[in-house]
């Protein structure tokens, strides 16, 4: 048993070394505009929530008060967002999971094309926020 643990330890050290020196290692930190569910909860009601998922998924379930702004029908839906938008207010965008990139695309469009600031991307599962 002791020898087994030693072997596992050696393997773990090799893995850790690989993580340190491997240039293709994954990034675990948050970008400057990314927030966790915990941080988003602190905005409590003082932010506009955008759901960047397709309309079908939005219709099935979404965060209370969220506005649907999907990538594929952006032009059709952006008017609804502008009606709800309050200048200067924080905006939090989520999509299906922490690995989806629709929220990033929507954030980029609102920043670059609409020159809107205070945009945050939710990392983590939006369902945790719902709970």
């Amino acid at each position, binding site marked *: 048993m002791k*020898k*087994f643990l030693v*072997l596992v330890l*050696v*393997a773990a050290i*090799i893995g850790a070394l690989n993580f340190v020196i491997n240039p293709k290692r994954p990034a675990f930190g948050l970008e400057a505009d990314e927030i966790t569910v915990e941080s988003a909860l602190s905005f409590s009601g003082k932010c506009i929530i955008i759901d960047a*998922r*397709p309309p079908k*998924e939005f219709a099935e379930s979404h965060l209370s008060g969220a506005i649907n702004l999907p*990538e*594929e*029908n*952006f*032009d*059709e839906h*952006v*008017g609804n967002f*502008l*009606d709800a*938008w*309050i*200048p200067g207010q924080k905006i939090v965008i989520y999509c*299906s*999971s922490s*690995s*989806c*990139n*629709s929220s990033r*695309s929507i954030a*980029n*469009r609102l920043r*670059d*094309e*609409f*020159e*809107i600031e205070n945009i945050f991307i939710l990392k983590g599962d939006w369902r945790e926020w719902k709970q």
Partner: protein
Amino acid sequence: MKVNNILLAFILILPPSLFGILSFETPVIEDTISSETASYDFSFAFKNTGKNTVEIKNISTTCGCTVAKNDKAAYGPQESGEIRGTFTIGDRTGIQEKDIYLETNDLGQSKIKLLLKINIEKDIEFKPSLIFWKKNEDAKEKSVRITLNNAEYISAESDNSNFNVSDPIKGTSGKDLALKVSPTTTAESKRGILKVRYKTKSGAEKNSIVHLLVK
């Protein structure tokens, strides 16, 4: 016991090539397409350069707009294959990055990430796409700069009488022009749309919009 430990140690340090290994010609596809493109078909070619058969157990994407599938379930040593798929464009513009994940039964390479990086060129671009006045600020003229990449300007008008739009002012490059827009009043919140009509390279006439907002 000693033999078991040696075997375990051997497995832990086995190089991945002794398992199966899917080697992709390129794990990233980069391309530039016109905004008139409805969908983009792609293919990632690979070869199993390992010693064992690799089974692809699942393929997932980070966007419902991207569908990908393998041509067969398992690939023997030295066998080639393809991951084919389609990216549906919709209203997307600019650089789009869509991840595709393969899950295999292989211990050395259980998850493989492929990347589709597509630049969707816009026929016409606005800077900015939203012209905004704060409520009760001066109802002064504000400009929108229009860049015609693959388009010819036809006309522009507001969809309601709450906003005035100037004639186009041509820029120096011949590819850009500006429009000046002002609200009739900023005493109350209002929203409008500036419709810009243009002709694409293929001769089709289209509208693109700039949002106008007093709030």
